[in-house]
C-alpha cells in the first residue's frame, strides 16, 4: 500500500465537488445525480419534456475534464503521471465490450451505479442503495482479485 498525500488530497477535493454537484442538482431540479439513470434514460427512452436537463448535465460532465485539460496546470490525478487528466483503458476492445455490456445491463436492472447508489443513495441512507453499493464493491474487489492474482498470477 502506498499512501500518496497529494493523490489523496486530490481525491478528497474532487469528491467534495462531486458531492456539491449532487446537492446542486437536488436543490435546483430535485433530481438524483445518477449517471446511469440520466444517460441511460435519455438514450433508451428519450422522455418528452424530461430530456433537456439530462443533455445539459451530460454536456457539463464532459466539459469538466476537457476544461481541466485545456487549463493545463496539472490538476489531474492519473496514477504515475502527475497532473495528467485522463488515464489509459485497462484492457483492449474485447475486454471493454464485455465489461461495458455488464455495466450497462447491471446498472440498468439494478437501477443505478456508483453515483446514483453510491454518492446519492448513501447520502439519503437508502437501504436499497446501501445494499447495492456493498454488492457491487464486493463483487468488483473479487473480480480484480481473480483477474490480477488468480488468472494473472502476480503476487
Amino acid at each position, binding site marked *: 500500500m502506498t*499512501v500518496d498525500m497529494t*493523490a*489523496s488530497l*486530490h*481525491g478528497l477535493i474532487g*469528491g467534495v465537488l*462531486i*458531492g*456539491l*454537484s449532487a446537492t*446542486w*442538482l*437536488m436543490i*435546483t*431540479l*430535485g433530481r438524483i*445525480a445518477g449517471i446511469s439513470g440520466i444517460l*441511460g434514460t435519455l438514450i433508451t*427512452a428519450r422522455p418528452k419534456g424530461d430530456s*433537456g436537463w439530462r443533455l*445539459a448535465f451530460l454536456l*457539463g*460532465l*464532459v466539459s*469538466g475534464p*476537457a*476544461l*481541466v485539460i485545456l487549463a493545463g496546470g496539472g490538476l489531474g*490525478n*492519473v496514477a504515475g503521471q502527475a497532473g495528467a487528466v485522463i*488515464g489509459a*483503458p*485497462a484492457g483492449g*476492445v474485447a475486454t*471493454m*465490450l464485455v*465489461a*461495458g*455490456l*455488464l*455495466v*450497462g*445491463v*447491471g*446498472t*440498468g436492472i*439494478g*437501477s443505478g451505479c456508483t453515483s446514483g447508489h453510491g*454518492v446519492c443513495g448513501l*447520502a*439519503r441512507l437508502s437501504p436499497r442503495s446501501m445494499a447495492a453499493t456493498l*454488492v*457491487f*464493491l464486493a463483487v*468488483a*474487489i473479487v*473480480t*480484480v482479485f481473480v*483477474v*490480477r492474482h488468480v488468472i494473472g498470477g502476480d503476487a
Partner: protein
Amino acid sequence: MRSVMAYIAGLLFGLGLAISGMTDPARVLGFLDVAGDWDPTLMFVLGGAVVTNFVGYRLAMRRPNPLFASAFQLPTRRDLDGRLLGGAALFGVGWGLSGYCPGPAFASVSGITLPLAAMLAAMIVGWFIARRV
C-alpha cells in the same frame, strides 16, 4: 434556466472526476485491488462526496420544493429484490474488469480511445437489454 442549472451540476461532477483522478481506470482498479499495491484514492473521493452530499441533501430538503422544479423526485422503494442485487453484482464484474463505471467512462470522452469507445457502445447496448429483461 433548468438547462443552465443542470449544466452547472454536470460541470461540477466532471471537474470532480477529473481532479480526483477517477477518470483514470488505474486509480479505480488500484483501490479495488486490496491484495495488491492498494490505492486509497477512491475512498477519499467517495467519502468526500457522500459526506458533502449528506449535509447538502439535508439543507436542500428543508425547502418544500426545488428552486426550478415543482417537486423533489426521490426513489421511494426500500425493499431489496433480485433485480437490485443481481444487477449490482453484474455491474461489479464489469466495473472490476474495466475500472470504468458510467460517470468516469462518459466523462473521459475528450480522451477517447478505441477500448473506451467499445466500452461506451456496449454499455448503451446493455441499457437497451436491461429494459427488456
